[in-house]
């Protein structure tokens, strides 16, 4: 008996068992490869290869007849800092990110708190959600005429003030970004609100009731109970809207198509304009790399904050 047990556990037997296990694992891995192959191939060929190629491209020099075979070092990047269009586009992108985060959150939270305990909540929820179901291009086309000189907004202002008003909201550098951001908020407010309502619904009622009985004001309850518990949802919404703020293209391209300085409206538009309207492929690629680096950096920071917050709550 003793000898049998010791041969069972002898190094040779153990090694053999481990080898058999590994062989079985590899056998299953080979089957698993078949399952993951379509996804891996598609993503690698159509998404990851282009990204690598984009980075390489940003270090080349585009010439009309010889193509992209000349390396240019950091020339394209150096050019970014010299060109005022780029810094303007960068500034407007910052405005977009801040606007796309703050307005949906502030208005959406206000709406969610208002809607929380009123009759017909579902109906109102659907109404505010409606614009989200339309395509951004269609929304852009509609709002293009809302802001037009003889459009909805100006005639509303004329009727309210009694004096004719025909301001071109999408033609003035002072109002074009704000107008398109307003449309963005109009379209995405519904989703932000729905997500916040879900977050609010998940907050337990007991501590709120207890605080109220103890004489806490609504403001105190919001600040000390609701807000900390809602923070994870707020962060999710922020992450979604930051990404949208960096990369929104459709609305800008459709609504501000007539604006002479449209290339400076955001980095996403600037990249598109330089690459596909100006044919500056290599330079456009450098803009795309800068945009990508910023998106990834900011998303990583937010993900870090998010993991901190969820850890604290648990």
């Amino acid at each position, binding site marked *: 008996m003793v000898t049998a047990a010791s041969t069972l556990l002898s190094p040779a037997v153990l090694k053999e068992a481990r080898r058999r296990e590994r062989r079985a694992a590899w056998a299953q891995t080979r089957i698993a490869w078949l*399952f993951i192959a379509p996804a891996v191939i598609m993503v690698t060929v159509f998404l990851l290869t282009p990204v690598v190629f984009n980075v390489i491209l940003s270090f080349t020099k585009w010439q009309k007849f010889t193509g992209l075979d000349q390396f240019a070092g950091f020339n394209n990047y150096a050019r970014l800092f010299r060109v005022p269009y780029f810094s303007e586009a960068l500034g407007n992108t910052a405005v977009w990110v801040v606007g796309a985060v703050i307005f949906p959150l502030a208005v959406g939270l206000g709406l969610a708190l208002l809607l929380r305990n009123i009759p017909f909540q579902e109906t109102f929820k659907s109404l505010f959600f409606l614009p989200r179901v339309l395509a951004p291009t269609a929304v852009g086309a509609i709002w293009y005429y809302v802001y037009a000189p003889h459009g909805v907004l100006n005639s509303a202002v004329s009727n309210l003030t009694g004096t004719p008003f025909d301001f071109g909201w999408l033609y003035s550098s002072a109002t074009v970004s704000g107008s398109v951001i307003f449309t963005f908020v109009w379209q995405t407010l519904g989703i932000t609100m729905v997500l916040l309502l879900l977050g609010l619904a998940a907050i337990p009622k007991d501590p709120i009731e207890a605080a109220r009985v103890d004489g806490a004001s609504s403001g105190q309850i919001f600040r000390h109970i609701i807000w900390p518990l809602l923070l994870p949802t707020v962060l999710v919404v922020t992450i979604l809207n930051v990404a949208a703020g960096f990369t929104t293209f459709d609305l800008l391209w459709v609504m501000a198509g007539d604006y002479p300085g449209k290339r400076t409206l955001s980095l996403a538009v600037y990249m598109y304009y330089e690459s596909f309207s100006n044919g500056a492929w290599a330079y456009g690629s450098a803009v795309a790399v800068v945009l990508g680096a910023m998106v990834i950096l900011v998303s990583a920071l937010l993900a870090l904050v998010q993991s901190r917050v969820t850890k604290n709550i648990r």
Partner: protein
Amino acid sequence: MAVDITDRQFISGLIEKERKAQRVGGRWLVVPIIVLAIAYLTPLYYLFVTVFKTSTEYARKGVLELPDSLGPIIDNTIQAWTIAHLGEAALNSFSYALVGGVLAVAFAAAAAYGMTRLTLIGANGWFMLIFTGTLFPFQMYLVPLLFGYQRLGLINSWFGMLLLYVAICIPFPLLVLRNSFASITKEVDEAARIEGASEWRVFVSMIVPNAIGPMIALFLLQFTFIWNDLLFSSILANGIEVRSIMVALQSLQGTYSTLGPNVVITAALISSIPTVLLFIALRKYFMAGLQLGTK
């Protein structure tokens, strides 16, 4: 007056009174919300009165005035339809969205199966590889895709456009399905395997039916994304025979357009019909899909 806080009835009476006060306050909140909702929906109201106006009527009347009759929508539709080839574009977009959405979710599901239900050496590495596909902004794909497509002859082709849509719609469903597949108990497939079922059989008849809800929600999200796409199709497939509905819509609008707003806005309405109908019919799945996006 002394208050006995140990008196349960007294306390619950207080809470009841408080709740009632809240409910009454709640009822009054409906008024500002209705005002806000009306202002919010004005652009949509504008959409609906405009599609029933003729160009001359649009120029003559106030923008928010009611139309004379419902008739002009037919002429507006015919104009938009023939000038922008909307029918062809709608068919293109519908086929991209349907085939692309189905294939992307199917590929993502297969990959999720391989990563969660089978022993896959290096599963996390493979997952990270695909997940990387969600990190970069679309602007980083554009120029290389244009060059690559030109070289491979995929430019301006239905198939080339479809390939990109499938690829771009894989990473997010994989992220979600990996979680939902992992939450299905192991006994489900182990029992089937002991009975001698192949891995394919286990995948198709045990795992997929268990996660059909999220898969439908994911399909709807991807369908909507592809249908709404303007960016990729404006660069890779803008020929009239292959272009998407959003490119067609955009071609109607803008400075060089001689068409009245009534025609352009009719086209905008037409281009939104499929996703609006899907939303109404499958609201439950749609909302579930949105929540998927937050996990």
